């Protein structure tokens, strides 16, 4: 793996973990704060914001390691040549889907720039939407790698 790609993956991994841990601890703090009579107005929104980022970054980490479930039973019945083309087709479609998702997530982020979190006024909802952009872009890169691999086979 090339060096920049390696750095990218480590940053991604670190952020995903940090967001997941933050989300969990914020939910915990929200419960405790409420129990003690000092509810945190922002806890729900901040927890779901960090959750969104953990999901989309974690989605790519899972994809890199082939952790997303697929049904390959039928694929194994095909002759090797056809199997290869099925694979190429599948990853081409996935890449196309992720590219579309990326482009439209940017548009959605732009459209929702006025909308703010209910519990955190002034914090634009666009920051949540951008988690989908980051995640789909990273997954697009991973899917393109898979496509290249399938073509080489």
């Amino acid at each position, binding site marked *: 793996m090339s060096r920049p790609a390696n750095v990218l993956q480590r940053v991604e991994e670190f952020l995903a973990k940090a967001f997941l841990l933050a989300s969990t601890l914020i939910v915990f703090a929200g419960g405790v704060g*409420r129990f003690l009579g000092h509810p945190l*107005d922002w806890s729900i929104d901040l927890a779901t914001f960090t959750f969104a980022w953990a999901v989309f970054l974690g989605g790519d980490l899972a994809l890199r390691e082939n952790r997303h479930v697929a049904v390959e039973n039928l694929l194994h019945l095909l002759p090797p040549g056809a199997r290869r083309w099925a694979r190429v087709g599948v990853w081409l479609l996935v890449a196309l889907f992720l590219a579309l998702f990326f482009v439209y997530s940017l548009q959605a982020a732009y*459209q*929702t720039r006025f*909308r703010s979190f209910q*519990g955190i006024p002034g914090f634009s909802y666009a920051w949540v939407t951008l988690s989908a952009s980051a995640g789909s872009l990273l997954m697009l890169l991973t899917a393109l790698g898979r496509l290249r691999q399938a073509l080489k086979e």
Partner: protein
Amino acid sequence: QTYTLRFNHVLGPNHPYHAGFQAWAERVAQRTGGDLRILVFHSSQLGIEEDIIEQLRQGIPLGQNTDGARLGNYVKELGVFNGPYFVESYEEVEKLASLPVVQGWVERLAKQYGIRVVCFNWVQGYRHFMTNKPVRRPEDLRGLRIRTPPAPVWQESVRALGATPVALPFGEIYSALQQRAIDGAELVYANIPDMSLWEVLRYVNETKHFLLINFQVVGEAWYQRLPANYRQILREECVRAGRETSMRIQQEEARIKQLVQQRGMTIVSDVDLAAFRKAAETAYERLGLKAVRDALYQALRK
């Protein structure tokens, strides 16, 4: 040419609003010979309110039942409709709708943000504090954790009235009350039988702190595509159905009050409303809506 609008709301299928929206849809279809259809979706089936509002702004044929707090994100002054003790009767709501200054805000919402208010005379009734101990004065609310919708206008208002607002999604209310994770909620009468709240709450304190006013909105782009006479039919029938539904809710409240008492809840009606009104002033100051409200009161000659 035919037009189809999908209209979304967060309330359940048994809420009087749902029947009201369907009556609106039926009459519009009748008067346009079926050319303008409204399909009504309950329980937020088409998504969360904020998303729908964003989508209808893009010209997608969607409508949404919403409130001043949400529209206040776009035109700040509209937030005043969600202020505590803002209006006192349904008649005042109708009068407000016709004020030129309010019409000006509505036009700004349409021109600048692409959100068209079709009508805003739908009233769900008064919201009251519902708790496990009687509440008569703002002091009685001190230290009570009250579930409040997670918007600043609501939160500030409930804080001003003396309680500690807790932001929780609507669907979590029952279990949070059951587990005593919160001490109460502030809701309208119709919510009690819907969620069997008598299982977990003992008092309805008639604080009447909000008269819950709703706005029916569609996308301005879609609205402008309609022929002028269809736009008029859409508006007229919205106002008519809104008036009927609001009246129906007022009448049903008497029946629900009886039911709620049969199920063991106590209704506290000797609430010191003057003290609560005074406490509410702080909310308007903190939200920067005091001048807006006073100007409206002047226009209403109140």
